[in-house]
């Protein structure tokens, strides 16, 4: 009997199917392309291809002064441009050897956490949408819209903000902005409860995410994962805690960590982060100190606009800084900051001129895209979609 069965197996030839998921596919969050080798519905081999959105940001950065390259960082992870800006200016400040005043630090922390909220809201919406639930996506987008409105009040831009400046921030916050932000912060936990009602304990959601894409703590570290993707595996590593920048050492917050390292843990970690971000914003508003918003370092910061218009020396000074750039100490510097996707690092090599000799961006999305084969192989094609959502990548940052 067994023999007969085996013979039948042999005569029934099966073929593996190669399917190209992306670069134009509804679930790949941009232009990620995954070449999947399928045996039925099981993924045998998964090969990610990146680079469809390559714009040469690192090389472009070498052609611009340190001030002028700031907007390039907006275009890395365009969903959380505020966090990229904060990371960029922190790295440049370390290179220049200056420090932003206290008020600017608190404002930066506040807006960075707003950026984190807005990015995590998009992650939540799209991740859940990929699994098939449409309503949380639309509820979440309505909530994100309010953050963008607040950004608009703050600096006039909604998406690519370029609000922080080397040595501080562009302009001070207004009372109206703080009031509306506080209102939003108070209301936000109720919105979170709405999303969680639809998703967290949902039986289907748990079936789709629990025990999917498990990666152990050790492996996660070895793959170079950071951010929520790493903390989901139970590694308590957060740059905000481990190497505090801006005002993160002056606010209280918890770092949620997972246990198993599956999609559901990563989901819970990010949900927790959203509540923590909300908490940080609240503390920043309450503790916001008075004072200047730009460092008193005339060699490295642009002079105020009203003085430029009135005063010849300041005009010349600004002209020199903008065209030639500041005189920067030689050397190299790396600063990592915790952006919503993970650890975003800026590495500068300075040769003493106003432009970086080398600008390198450590993009968490790039590292996370590389772990896709590890997460997907052996799973089903539907799990690939869950995994793309859970590693939370943005291709603008991945391809740079």
């Amino acid at each position, binding site marked *: 009997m067994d023999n007969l069965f085996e013979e039948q197996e042999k005569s029934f030839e099966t073929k593996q199917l190669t399917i190209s998921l992306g670069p134009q596919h509804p679930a790949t969050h941009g232009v990620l392309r995954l070449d999947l080798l399928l045996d039925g519905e099981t993924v045998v081999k998964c090969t990610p291809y990146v680079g469809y959105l390559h714009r040469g940001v690192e090389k472009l950065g070498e052609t611009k002064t340190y001030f002028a390259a700031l907007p390039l960082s907006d275009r890395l992870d365009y969903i959380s441009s505020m966090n990229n800006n904060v990371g960029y200016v922190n790295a440049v400040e370390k290179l220049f050897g200056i420090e932003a005043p206290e008020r600017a630090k608190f404002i930066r922390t506040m807006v960075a956490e707003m950026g984190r909220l807005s990015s995590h809201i998009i992650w939540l919406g799209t991740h859940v949408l990929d699994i*098939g*639930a449409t309503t949380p996506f639309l*509820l979440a987008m309505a909530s994100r819209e309010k953050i963008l409105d607040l950004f608009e009040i703050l600096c006039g831009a909604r998406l690519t903000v370029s609000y922080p400046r080397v040595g501080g921030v562009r302009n001070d916050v207004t009372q109206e902005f703080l009031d509306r932000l506080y209102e939003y912060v108070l209301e936000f936990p109720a919105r979170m409860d709405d999303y969680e009602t639809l*998703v967290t304990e949902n039986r289907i959601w748990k*079936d*789709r995410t629990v025990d999917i894409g498990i990666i152990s703590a050790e492996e996660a570290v070895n793959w170079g994962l950071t951010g929520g993707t790493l903390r989901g595996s139970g590694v308590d590593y957060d740059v905000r805690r481990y190497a505090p920048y801006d005002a993160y050492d002056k606010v209280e917050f918890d770092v949620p960590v997972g246990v198993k390292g599956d999609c559901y843990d990563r989901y819970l970690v990010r949900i927790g982060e959203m509540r923590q971000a909300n908490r940080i914003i609240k503390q920043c508003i309450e503790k916001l100190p008075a004072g200047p918003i730009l460092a008193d370092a005339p060699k490295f910061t642009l002079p105020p606009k009203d003085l430029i218009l009135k005063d010849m020396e300041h005009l010349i000074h600004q002209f020199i800084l903008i065209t030639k750039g500041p005189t920067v100490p030689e050397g190299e510097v790396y600063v990592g900051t915790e952006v919503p996707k993970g650890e975003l690092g800026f590495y500068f090599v300075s040769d003493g001129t106003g432009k970086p000799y080398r600008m390198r961006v450590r993009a968490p999305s790039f590292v996370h895209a590389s772990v896709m084969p590890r997460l997907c192989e052996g799973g089903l094609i539907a799990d690939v979609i869950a995994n793309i959502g859970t590693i939370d990548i943005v291709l603008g940052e991945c391809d740079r």
Partner: protein
Amino acid sequence: MNELLTQSLTYIRSFGIIGNIFLILLQIVVVFVAALLHVAYATYWERKVIAHMQLRLGPREVGPYGLFQPFADGIKLFFKEDIIPATADKPIFYLAPVIFFVSALTSLAVLPFFDGFVVADINVGLLFLLAMSSLGAYGIVMSGWSSGSKYSFLGGLRSASQVISYEIAMGLSLVGVMIMSGSLNLSEIVRGQHAITTGVYAIPQVLGFFVFVVAMFAETNRLPFDLPEAESELVAGYFTEYSGFRFAMFFLGEYTGMLIMSSVGTICFLGGWTLPQFVTNALPFLLFVPGIVWFLMKVYCFMFFYYWVRATLPRYRYDQLMAIGWKVLIPIALVNIVFTGTMKIMGWF
């Protein structure tokens, strides 16, 4: 009015077989037009209902409150370019949407919308319905196979296995109803329900009703079981490569399928066009309301449930769907059959 109708019916019938054929054709036209209008507005209501669940407004530009939106969509699809992939198997590619749509429409023939109004009052109505809904799966499989696209192919295969698995669960869930009513004729099933105390089979057949409702979602490829067309995995599944009116036929077929499944649920479990006797005894004036009103109200409840679920739930994975079908629904349905049969023999039903 009624007299006039009876008189004209007698007059038409006096022509013998030609008169009868004319009557049936008239009925077909009425059912066809009514069903297609319902399908058109089912899409409109779906968009409206889901929009309001999601803090949106839904269609509101075309006509008052966007009421002409379904027609605008239809006209647009009709004038769209008909694209056929170069690698497609053309005859099958042409045929697939037709099979899908026609098998959905044919099912309408045996549905009694109210007392005495049914195009073909056949004795095996329920079997005919199940047969037609299985036939619709051929349309899906053929479209997936002939499109020459890997996404369509996977969608078609998924659909084939899904429909086969859930066909069994659905058939078994309806066996309880057959045992209780002792008939496969849909009008007889409704009359049988009207005779019992509860007035609906949904109460004694609660397990069967549960299995039917779950299988209903799978049969019509709707969330949470819309795997054949899972847009985040398979782009659009089996109809990825279709455009223009061929796409519209799949679309119409899907919504007709929803309407038919809702009607079957109404007829087999919720008493069709009748109200339970204890309700009409308590509120006798309800008897003056035509049966079609109750029938449609019950169908709309099912349709609303479809929309509601779609706005609430995520999608199951393929293997989980199969596990639910085989390991949960079919055993429940079998238990229900044993239970109902025992009750029938004991004479309690």
